[in-house]
């Protein structure tokens, strides 16, 4: 911009920005530090010794939850969603390069899907595909157990959200 000397406003805003960054990172760094908490410490400061106990605990076999399996599921889910998103968005983006019958309606439906709160969609999907009634009719989602199905569907919600960007360009 201009090469004149920094004015007072700059310093005020720079401090404001610094505080904002501190606000963003402060709690996260607290959590990272606390993850090295000693054996008999909790989620509070000061640290009760330093250890890797909680990390070891995470990868050990536990009564509730299985970190490795959950992690693999998340990763697979992420990959599936990525592939579906890229393919569908790319195709839709190509389609929107031309005008076709219903293109405006489809475009507005895509934008509207961004505007509707996710809990409403989750509820609707819960009504359409009740979790305790196994036959879903959706073969590609049927690969997943019903509990994962819900997650997969919610991810698809993100798919919809992401789609409006390529088509909007």
């Amino acid at each position: 911009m201009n090469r004149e000397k920094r004015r007072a406003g700059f310093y005020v805003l720079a401090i404001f920005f610094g505080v904002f960054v501190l606000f963003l990172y402060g709690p996260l760094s607290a959590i990272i530090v606390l993850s090295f908490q000693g054996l008999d410490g909790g989620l509070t400061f000061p640290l009760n010794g330093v250890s890797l106990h909680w990390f070891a605990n995470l990868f050990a076999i536990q009564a509730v939850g299985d970190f490795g399996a959950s992690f693999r599921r998340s990763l697979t889910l992420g990959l599936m969603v990525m592939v579906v998103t890229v393919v569908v968005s790319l195709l839709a983006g190509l389609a929107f390069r031309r005008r076709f019958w219903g293109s405006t309606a489809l475009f507005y439906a895509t934008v509207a899907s961004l505007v509707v709160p996710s809990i409403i969609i989750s509820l609707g999907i819960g009504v359409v595909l009740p979790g305790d009634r196994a036959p879903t009719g959706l073969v590609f989602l049927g690969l997943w157990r019903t509990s994962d199905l819900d997650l997969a569907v919610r991810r698809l919600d993100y798919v919809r959200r992401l789609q409006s960007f390529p088509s909007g360009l």
Partner: protein
Amino acid sequence: MVAIDSVLTKRNRHGPVGARWPVPYLQALPLLVILGFFFLLPIVMIAVVSFWDYDFSRLYPAFQSMNYTDTLGSWVTWKTYLNTLKFTAIVWAATLFIGFWVAYFLAFHVRSAVTQGILFLVCTVPFLTSNIIRMIAWIPVLGRNGLVNTAFIKMGLISQPIEWLLYSEFAVVLAMVHLYTLFMVTPIFNTLMRIDRSLLEAARDGGANSWQVIWNVVIPLAKPGMAIGTIFVVILVMADFSTVQVMSGGQSASVALMMKNQMSLLQYPAAAANAVVLLVIVLLIVAAILRVVDIRKEL
């Protein structure tokens, strides 16, 4: 370059040479299927189910307004809706204020594009972690023996730990501002970057001081970005249940949390009636924003 672009788009709009008619339909089909199954169908089903009857174990197809009269006739529901709107208003005001000044600093005070990019990235990185992690991260900071309380006691500012820092409405608002400010920063930053810098110079040459430049030039031109950020934040806050549940420790309610509780009790029609009311409110707010600000240029 711009001329060539516009010629290309114009030709594409009217169908480029060699494109057969089914091609765009086939390309749009996956999107149509996904929107149909995961957007339109659920919404239609919610509207239908909101008129159904139910008991503790199943739903009965019917056409009755009981779900609406039940939910709208209870003062608990009204209080919950008002509470949600209160959270929305406070979080909106806070994120708009913070978001505008952060974006303004990045766009106008940071001089090199590289620094701008780095600083923007610095703001973005925390948003790559999940909402839950960022929420839980506040607990050791705000808790009874948390960082803030310990620091204040050590400094001698207070003798007893402050109780309302965690598991309170304050905590809910703080966490929401923390979670959602980026959704305000990004669109505002985008619009600010598109403002022609010569307009600011012209205003300054015309004798405007910095405040007048901000108030009369920057803010009016930043309105589309503010509107998009506002829509994002309003929707996110109105649909939020996890932040309210975790950060208020169950002492506060929001419409989405009420819906979630109804869903876990299998009272789908009651939740559906709430969903319809919530959807209407959200759409009215969005429509009101779009009436005031024209965001079409930003899409």
